[in-house]
């Protein structure tokens, strides 16, 4: 099964995403609570996919996305953020994000995005 690294500073959101993924038989590669942890864990775990929050302490999700894409251009990252303004979406897509999900979301929206990116 495909493995997913879940990145969000809120343990509540990590639990929600983990719940959706395990119900759909994905493996959880790991959980990161900020952008720096995400960069480090990506290197260590090489997950098939990353769900990336934006608003986080230490390093935000856009900075982490840029670092991960810089070192691993093949990385598949889906942004999951409450900040859905167009400029943010464009920034993320230009930096290499494969999709952008606005929080709060429905489970179906997450699965559609993941299946499309991995498909």
């Amino acid at each position: 099964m495909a493995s997913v690294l879940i990145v969000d500073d809120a343990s509540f959101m990590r639990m929600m995403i983990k719940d959706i993924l395990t119900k759909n038989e994905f493996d959880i590669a790991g959980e990161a609570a900020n952008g720096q942890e995400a960069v480090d864990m990506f290197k260590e775990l090489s997950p098939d996919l990353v769900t990336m929050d934006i608003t986080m302490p230490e390093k935000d999700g856009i900075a982490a996305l840029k670092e991960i894409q810089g070192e691993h251009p093949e990385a598949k990252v889906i942004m999951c953020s409450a900040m859905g303004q167009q400029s943010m979406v464009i920034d993320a897509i230009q930096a290499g994000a494969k999709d952008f999900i606005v929080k709060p979301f429905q489970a179906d929206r997450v699965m559609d995005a993941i299946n499309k990116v991995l498909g």
Partner: protein
Amino acid sequence: MSSAPHMEAQHVNAITNAAVMIVEQHLGIEAKFSKPYVSGKQFLASDISVVMGVNGQLEGQIICTMEEKTARSIVGNMMGGMEISVLDDMGWSAIQEFGNWVAGRAASELAKAEAVIDISPPVINEGHSRFRMEKTFLTFPLSSAAGEVYLHVSITPSNRS
């Protein structure tokens, strides 16, 4: 007496729309705003405050406050309709994320009014406390089936833009 803060009507609308969208459309909790009022340079917060910084073309703070039982009701709803008797670590994380959702949606709505902002990660304050600031707060009271949620907002155009 403090004078009314300068906040454009479209920015006010963006914030109220955002909160109603999250509470009513996403959480399915019936909600209605009553008229915003000027809290001045200080206000006394209820049990729980979610504090978020705003920067970008507008700068300041958005502080979301509510009673503990309102928070429990919102968190229960976020967890898919559970009865929450006490806020544990996951519950605190959820109410923090609720603040992030409201502020995030406000940022999206403000962008439509051509004000691009970023939000800082929320910080939770537990217990009644008095918030003070040099600038004036405007308070938006949202009555909902879960209880009252107050959005205390102080955002003004940044000097940098």
